[in-house]
């Protein structure tokens, strides 16, 4: 990768440009120095960390390309493709329990600790110091919707349409969420729904992540949601919260499932639908439980883009083959499916850690993807004032998420507006705090 120049569109992410240009391994893993690269393409997996323009640990899939952007691999010597420390993986084929590593002798143990400290850690410090400390902004709204996918767009549109001041927080480069990764829906549908939300009066904060909820901070307002934009922090106070954070792309369990080239099916779909890029020439789609509809739609769309596609069910997969990039999937029957990308269609895991910080009850439901938020019909969680809708309440897919989102957004707005009639508009009811 280093020393090469690649061409890219300024609207696309660094990761998309790397996929399109055939550049691949970005770093090495912490312990065994196994090769690492993008997996989810949605800024959630931590696989595509790279040093971009001198700043370490940036997510390549959430960093837009600009002219003259420099991209460097990290955590590898001499390069992510050929990393000498990869030897650790060979030396500990059955894994390494660092609790008991060389604990027999104190001298050896000290030595081992020193070596491990040198080898571990992520990236090196930024090239330049940061002297500008951005001011913190304050937002007060009736309804704050977190997540700009099918559920969140529908919820925000419904809330704003009924007259509630509505803020939509979304962490991606472009609003639309899973609509932009689904060949049955796609960019035109996403753009139309975003336009409808804007027309209804929704204010959107794109590229902004809800990083924490602090109930003890401004308790008279019911707590503060900290939202990180690319260049400053926003403290959000809202009368009602709607979590529509969807689900995270996860992996399936087979040997060497972390091999670069094993990508989330939704990431492959996002490449195709949002960026018009075929992630590979021969793609093997591995279909997990409950994901047949999406996997079939993706396979068909990939074939339409002249990709050689094979599909196999997850329980038939034994291992991935290949060294720094996948070359085949080996089945339990010993059959080999040659490929240059494996698209893993596992059920997305509900992105419920934000609601959990607000105290919402969740339950582990493997058939719905993971820890789903428990809600009633109108999306009320176990915490007063907090609603949730879409895949964060258990996987339902983008069509059903939009339907339920509209209902939940309406219910949240109704409660917020009832409070406004009682106490007055949100923007003037409490003393302004913040910067």
């Amino acid at each position, binding site marked *: 990768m280093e020393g090469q120049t690649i061409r890219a569109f300024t609207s696309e992410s660094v990761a998309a440009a790397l996929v399109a240009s055939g550049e691949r391994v970005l770093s090495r*893993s*912490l*312990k*065994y120095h*196994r090769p*690492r690269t993008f*997996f*989810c393409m949605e*800024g*959630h*997996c*931590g696989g595509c*960390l790279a040093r971009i323009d001198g700043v370490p640990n940036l*997510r390549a899939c959430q960093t837009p390309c600009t002219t003259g952007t420099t991209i460097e691999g990290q955590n590898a010597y001499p390069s992510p493709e050929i990393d000498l420390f*990869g030897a650790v*993986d*060979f030396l500990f*084929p*059955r*894994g390494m*329990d660092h*609790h008991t590593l060389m604990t027999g002798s104190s001298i050896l143990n000290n030595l081992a600790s020193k070596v491990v400290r040198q080898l571990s850690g*992520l990236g090196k410090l930024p090239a330049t*110091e*940061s*002297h*500008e*400390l*951005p001011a*913190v902004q304050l937002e007060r709204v009736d309804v704050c919707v977190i997540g700009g996918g099918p559920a969140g767009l529908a919820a925000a549109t419904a809330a704003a349409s009924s007259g509630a001041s509505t803020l939509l927080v979304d962490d991606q480069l472009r609003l639309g969420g899973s609509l932009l990764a689904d060949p049955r829906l796609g960019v035109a549908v996403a753009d139309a729904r975003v336009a409808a939300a804007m027309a209804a009066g929704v204010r959107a904060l794109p590229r902004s*992540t809800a*990083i*924490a909820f*602090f109930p003890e901070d401004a308790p008279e307002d019911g707590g503060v949601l*900290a939202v*990180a934009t690319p*260049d400053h*922090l926003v403290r959000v106070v809202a009368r009602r919260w709607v979590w529509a954070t969807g689900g995270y792309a*996860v*992996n399936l*369990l*087979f040997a*060497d*499932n*972390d091999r670069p080239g094993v990508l989330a099916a939704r990431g492959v779909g996002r490449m195709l639908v949002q960026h018009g890029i075929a992630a590979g020439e021969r793609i093997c789609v591995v279909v997990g439980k409950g994901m047949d509809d999406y996997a079939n739609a993706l396979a068909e769309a990939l074939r339409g883009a002249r990709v050689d596609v094979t599909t196999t069910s997850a329980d038939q997969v034994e*291992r991935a083959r290949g*060294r720094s990039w996948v070359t085949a999937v080996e089945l339990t029957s010993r059959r080999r499916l040659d490929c240059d990308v494996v698209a893993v269609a596992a059920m997305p*895991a*509900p*992105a*419920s*850690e*934000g609601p959990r*910080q607000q105290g919402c009850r969740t339950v*582990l*439901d*493997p058939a719905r*993807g*993971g820890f789903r938020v428990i809600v009633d019909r109108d999306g009320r969680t176990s915490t007063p004032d907090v609603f949730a809708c879409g895949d964060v309440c258990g996987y339902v897919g983008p069509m059903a998420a939009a339907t339920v989102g509209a209902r939940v957004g309406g219910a949240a707005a109704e409660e917020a507006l009832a409070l406004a009639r009682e106490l007055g508009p949100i923007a003037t009811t409490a003393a302004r705090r913040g*910067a």
Partner: protein
Amino acid sequence: MGSKIVVCRCEDVTRADLEHSVARGYRDIEEVKRYTGFGTGPCQGKECLAVVATALAEITGEDPSFIAPFTSRPPLAPTPIKLLARDPAAHRFPDDPAEPVAAASEEET
């Protein structure tokens, strides 16, 4: 390369590590997190929490609905610390400097 089933890509935790942890008596999700380090990397469990919890239910035979998630802590995504430096909540304790620490070095330059 040694063949491994990876459950947490950030911290290189394998399915065998989970079995090893359970065999040593660390079965609860918070214990397994502390013993193996799963969920403590850059993704903070986004990719692995549900996968590990489901695998633990299989290994221990426990009813999944009895398995609680680990505590969700801020920040929920990698965040440059400078964004937090001027948050008023960061300076509300009496012993804290009124101005961010970096202000001193700003004056020198």
